[in-house]
Structures are given as structure tokens and as C-alpha cells.
């Protein structure tokens, strides 16, 4: 079945340094969608960005990611971390079969940004 791997459980960064959260996936579906969701404490997980286009950079709120089907990766990046970026980040995959968009989640990476 489908799977998503986020190797880092916790990433601690000093404010201002670049962010990179790793995500790799496995699926037999060539038109899969990849997502990043951000989950702040006591809030609901919300979509940060998504993509299904190979080698195209997608950006939102200062974050960006590029889907690379050749390496099955969708790493999340940001040029400069802010304290407010501290949250739990989930990478997820969908087979994009019309309305039935079951998401398969990775384990999540806690990003902790310190002054």
C-alpha cells in the first residue's frame, strides 16, 4: 500500500536559519498528490501546500516544496525560520481518485524554532 516517511521526528533550528523537512513516499499511482499540513497546538491541521506536478515548485506563506517523482520526494523548505513556524508538520499522499481523497500521512515532524 501507500506510505509516507518523515525521517525526522524533531527538528530544532535557530530563528533565521533555513528550514528543510524531509518527506519521501511510496505509491504505485503515477498521478498521486503530495501535501504538507501544518498543525499548531490546540488548532486543527491545515493545508500548507500541495502538488501533483513533477519538478514544479509550489509555494505558500514563505514555504515551498517541489515534487520529484524520480526520487519520490516532497521536501518542505523555507529560507528563514521564524518563531511562529514552530509546529507539527505532516507530509501526506493522496491517490487523487476524484472525490475519494483518502490521505496517507507520515509520522510528522515537530519543528521547534528557538531565538
Amino acid at each position: 500500500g501507500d506510505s509516507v516517511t518523515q525521517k525526522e521526528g524533531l527538528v530544532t533550528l535557530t530563528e533565521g536559519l533555513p528550514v528543510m523537512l524531509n518527506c519521501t513516499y511510496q505509491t504505485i499511482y503515477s498521478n498521486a498528490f503530495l501535501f504538507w499540513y501544518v498543525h499548531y497546538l490546540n488548532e486543527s491541521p491545515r493545508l500548507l501546500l500541495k502538488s501533483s506536478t513533477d519538478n514544479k515548485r509550489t509555494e505558500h506563506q514563505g514555504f515551498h516544496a517541489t515534487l520529484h517523482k524520480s526520487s519520490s520526494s516532497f521536501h518542505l523548505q523555507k529560507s528563514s525560520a521564524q518563531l511562529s513556524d514552530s509546529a507539527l508538520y505532516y507530509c501526506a499522499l493522496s491517490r487523487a481518485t476524484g472525490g475519494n481523497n483518502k490521505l496517507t500521512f507520515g509520522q510528522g515532524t515537530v519543528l521547534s524554532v528557538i531565538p
Partner: protein
Amino acid sequence: GPKVLQIPSHQIIDMGQMVTLNCDPVSNHLYFYWYKQILGQQMEFLVNFYNGKVMEKSKLFKDQFSVERPDGSYFTLKIQPTALEDSAVYFCASSFQGNTLYFGEGSRLIVV
């Protein structure tokens, strides 16, 4: 942005009792989902629901679980009877079409 509301936010229940978790999805959404997250683990798909029917369910969706959305009201997850391993945070999500899911804040269930 669109909001999914979940009631209750948390509940403690005795093993063997019934519990109903309620979800008020985004108003024009057509697809509804439940996910389960055990403490320290990833969110895992339980079930999705469309047009009054379960479309797909995972192995985690045991026989003791059921979902319904009577007359366009709450989308509910019922567990009867509950077991200790049902302790988790249950997230409801909804989507219109396409593939963006909107999640609620979760219902924390503790079975004792």
C-alpha cells in the same frame, strides 16, 4: 477559512460503554472522513463517507465502529462497545471535491 467543528473536544469513558463523536463539517462539503491518532503516532485513516454511504474503511475501522450522517446533520463516529485501545484523538475532515481536506481540532477519547 472553512471550519470543521468537533464535539466533544475530549471525553473520558468507561471501557465497554458507547461513545459518539460528533462532527459538523464545512457546509457545502460532500465527502467526510475520520482519522485516528494514538499519542505519539501518525494520523491513520479510519473511514470515508459520501452520499450516505461508507466509501472505504481501513483495518482500524473495527466492527464496533459505525458512522452516519442522518439528514445532513452531524457526521458521527460511534464506538460500541469501547475498548482500551480506542483511546486516541479522532480527527474529522471534510472536502467538497478535489483533494483538499479540512480538519477539525480533534476529539480526545480516553477509555478507562
